């Protein structure tokens, strides 16, 4: 299953992309996405452990299981305001 992950701020800079695609044999969880992201983009190791993830624009837990059409985003610690 192909999962697209949106990247922001330091994560976008580390990976050098606004969005990356990850291929999984079966429906992954957010925890699986974290693991493969760091494996594919080692530079993300400084960000991903500290980041939250969003599924369809809501914060999601590591146990959340993903479907093909879900919109996934890596949300590094926020600093708005």
């Amino acid at each position, binding site marked *: 299953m192909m999962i697209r992950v*949106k990247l*922001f*701020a*330091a994560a*976008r*800079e*580390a990976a050098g992309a606004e969005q990356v695609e990850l291929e999984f044999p079966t429906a992954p969880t957010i925890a699986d996405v974290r693991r493969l992201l760091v494996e594919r983009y080692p530079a993300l190791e*400084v*960000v991903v452990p*500290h980041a939250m993830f*969003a599924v369809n*624009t*809501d*914060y999601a837990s590591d146990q959340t299981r993903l479907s093909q059409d879900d919109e996934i*985003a890596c*949300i*590094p*610690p*926020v*600093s*708005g*305001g």
Partner: protein
Amino acid sequence: MIELTNNPIDANAVLSSVYDHGAGAVVFFLGTTREFTQERQTDSLDYQCYPEMAVKKLEELEAEAREKWPVIGCSIVHRLGRLELGEASVAIAVSTPHRRDAYEASQWIIDRLKQIAPIWKQENWSDGTSQWVHPGMASETETKP
């Protein structure tokens, strides 16, 4: 009024958007770009966001504030892109029948916004380096000029 904008924030427009004859108080908060963070000097700031989610989270903040306080008008506007020193990055206006509620709601909204809104700032330091601000991250990413 919930808005993300690349243009300078029109403080008067945000303020007047919450005026109402039922209100006895309006509290207006403006967050502005600061020159010194501890001893480091800032030249400018760049704000980036996840637009769809940021708008949704700001709308949720307004809805939650309305559950907690008797809010009449509520506007939250966040600036994006490049900001020079002294410019407003965020404006929050709240009107309520009595002032205590307006103060409390306004403070709660900016505190929650800083915790949950998917918005990030990058410090462009006066020494030419840039750095995304990610609170709690041991090594924040630094880019040399």
